[in-house]
């Protein structure tokens, strides 16, 4: 649910990183946080366990500049990927404008990827969204892993609506910004339609 403030000329959009446990959602936004101009980024808030697993969410506000005289601000959230945190995942999707699905390229995680997309579809539906129409990007992360499945194979298993599909190695920053950009593009074009 985009918040457009005509008084302060601001648009705030919420983007959620979704995916199975340890696929690299937090790594994506940590990399963005490290790279972003300190004046434009807010504080990275991580609600994590002692072992650095996301407990509730990570949050990073980013000032992107202006479009048509409006200041555009993205609020990036990640969900906890572990299966048993489903109630939290559902809450975080509330009012989101777009979803970035981070898939783990390792062959052994393919089943977890598929399960997590199904879980995303259910949780979006419960929040009143449709996975087939909401702005959506598929990121194939960990492309540098020796056990990575081929892109063709992953596309066949995980891509379902001709969404932008981006190869990434999030801990090195490869594909991270491209992914965010692809999501931003869809969200802003959606604003145009409404």
């Amino acid at each position, binding site marked *: 649910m*985009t*918040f457009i403030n005509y*008084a*302060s000329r601001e648009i705030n959009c*919420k983007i959620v990183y979704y995916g199975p446990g340890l696929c690299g959602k937090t790594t994506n936004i940590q990399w963005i946080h490290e790279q972003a101009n300190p004046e434009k980024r807010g504080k990275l808030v991580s609600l994590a366990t002692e072992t650095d697993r996301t407990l509730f969410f990570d949050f990073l506000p980013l000032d992107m500049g202006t*479009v048509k005289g409006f200041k555009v601000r993205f609020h990036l959230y990640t969900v906890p990927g572990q299966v048993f945190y489903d109630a939290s995942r559902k*809450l975080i999707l509330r009012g989101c404008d777009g979803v970035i699905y981070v898939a783990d390229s390792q062959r052994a995680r393919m089943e977890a990827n598929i399960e997590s997309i199904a879980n995303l579809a259910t949780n979006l539906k419960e929040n*009143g969204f449709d996975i087939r129409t909401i702005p959506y990007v598929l990121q194939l992360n960990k492309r540098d892993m020796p056990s990575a499945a081929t892109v063709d194979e992953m596309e066949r298993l995980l891509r379902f609506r001709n969404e932008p599909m981006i190869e990434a190695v999030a801990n090195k920053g490869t594909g991270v910004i491209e992914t965010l*950009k692809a999501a931003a593009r869809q969200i802003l074009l959606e604003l*145009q339609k409404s």
Partner: protein
Amino acid sequence: MAKLDLVMFEEEYKLLQEIIGRLQKDAQAKVVFLVDKNGQQIAASGDLKSIDATSLASLTAGNVAATDGLAKLIGEKEFSLLFHEGEKDNLHISIVGKRGILVVLFDQNSSLALVRLRVKKASKELQDIFDQVENRAQTETGVGARFESPFSEITDEDIDKLFGD
């Protein structure tokens, strides 16, 4: 989009800001925030320099969402009030209407009773404005009916510019 976007015009924003400002003074609070349930800050008043308002808004919304989840688990519709007591500062969080959260930060210069009393009055006024915003969104077909949306002509170039290309 699945749900109506929250679109706020200057006159409504001014009214909200006025109520928040008055509440902050009357309740002798350090800071008062109005946040929406998705974690976006709508209005604020008080000594804002000392606080990371964006994080506060997002964490408050997370907190309310989690508490909402708890309420539903035990068969309650929601918990409309949360109070966090600290050594020096306290947080009073209350739900306004369907989508607003009112956050009052106060110390020993005020009291929970005073804050509760003032919040109750301000909530009613805030609720009326939220209703207005909602009604307008429902009766008019989006922003376009009021005036041309600034986003109707977004180009790829505009989007590239955001990323510094």
